[in-house]
């Protein structure tokens, strides 16, 4: 449930230092569909960006739907006065995914959104029984690695498939805490560290300029 106060909408706190806002909280039933055209979506996104009282936070992560349309344009436009550190772009290894991600990278260039880097998700699966690796989503054209080289963007890391990830998400639990030894956890942590380093580095640069 989302509460309103004088200072705006309160995020829903998962933990003391993790707050979330989503249209999901505004729907009364799990069957409710948000069947809105662009302008109405833009209106809510504006409200979300303007009216949520986050307080003092170190990071605001904006999760977006797939594509390069209203939601993406609106987020970038409404945040143009604030400072967006950059975008993290997620792909899977196969060309069918990469071909859309190249468009997303072009979108970022077009709207002058810096790219922190690309994450290759669902990158290989290690059978829990025989420990052999299978490339379920094969990187037939070199995967994210080759694409990043070609387009001169950073590859932040590759996250392998792990059945526990889906389970944790479905149960609303932290995968990183539930499966601290998983290769996926190690991957996530390394990616997160690189993102933090990028943000710290760029913040320093900005402070120097001021």
């Amino acid at each position, binding site marked *: 449930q989302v509460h309103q106060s004088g200072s705006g909408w309160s995020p829903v706190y998962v933990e003391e230092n993790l707050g979330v806002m989503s249209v999901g909280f505004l729907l009364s039933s799990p069957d409710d569909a*948000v069947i809105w055209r662009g302008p109405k979506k833009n209106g809510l996104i504006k409200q979300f960006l303007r009216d949520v009282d986050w307080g003092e936070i170190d990071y605001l992560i904006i999760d977006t739907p797939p594509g390069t349309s209203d939601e993406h344009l609106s987020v970038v436009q409404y945040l143009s006065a604030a400072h967006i550190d950059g975008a993290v772009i997620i792909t899977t290894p196969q060309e*069918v995914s990469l071909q859309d991600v190249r468009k997303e990278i072009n979108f970022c260039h077009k709207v002058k959104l810096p790219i922190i880097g690309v994450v290759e998700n669902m990158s290989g*699966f290690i*059978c829990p029984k025989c420990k052999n690796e299978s*490339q379920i989503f094969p990187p037939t054209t070199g995967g994210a690695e080759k694409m990043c080289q070609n387009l001169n963007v950073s590859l932040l890391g590759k996250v392998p498939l792990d*059945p526990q990830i*889906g*389970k944790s998400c*479905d149960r609303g639990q932290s995968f990183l805490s539930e499966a601290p030894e998983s290769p996926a956890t190690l991957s996530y942590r390394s990616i997160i560290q690189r993102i933090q380093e990028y943000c710290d580095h760029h913040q320093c640069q900005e402070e120097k300029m001021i």
Partner: protein
Amino acid sequence: ERSNLAGVRHILLVLSGKGGVGKSTISTELALSLRHSGRKVGILDVDLCGPSIPRMFKVQDNDVHQCDSGWVPVFVDQDKSISLMSIGFLLEKPDDAVVWRGPKKNALIKQFVADVAWGDLDFLIVDTPPGTSDEHISTVEALRPYKPLGAILVTTPQAVSVGDVRRELTFCKKMGLRVLGIVENMSGFVCPHCLECTNIFSKGGGEELAKHAGVPFLGCVPLDPQLSQSLEEGRDFIQEFPKSSAFPALSHIAQQVLDGTLQQSS
């Protein structure tokens, strides 16, 4: 003047609440399966931001030509039994992003629905982007006069995906679109080395949802690296890999669609 959809016997949409669950894969394999039963099939790809269909048939470099009645769809081979239309064919460069707001997307979708000279088809499959927004509203409204057969909803097994597909079911209800059934995709993976089955994205959510919502369950399609590979290479998985793990489920989905249309005519 005869409409471009007058020769199309059955129209069906492939929808999902969620991205990345395999709509385009299911659309492609359904078309290939129907072709193998001797049907003529068209695919209309209305995913304007992430058009995957041309590549899945290895015709991504093809151009679209105009004729008197409108756009000529792209045939995937000499056989001319599968034809496609997608914004993918209209882009100057494949990496060009289509950064359009709703109204411009709606205008192109109206054109795609009205102005493609499909000729005579047994089935027109409409592949959609994820969600319940402009593309979906416009597509359903534009197709309404042609009385689509209905929609196939694709989900992966886990709750997070099923949760979005519940909303897609509401969309169908509100838009008066019949639900032909739910497909549970990426349902289990059989290790090719030791044959152990792992439910990477959990299992059963799609089937449960179908039961809960009172719609047909069309089956579980397992993760199959040979299927992913075929799509990457634009190959005919149904023709070339009948022994592969995803084949039985995919053929069964097509058979149910065919049985459904027979029921409808009788």
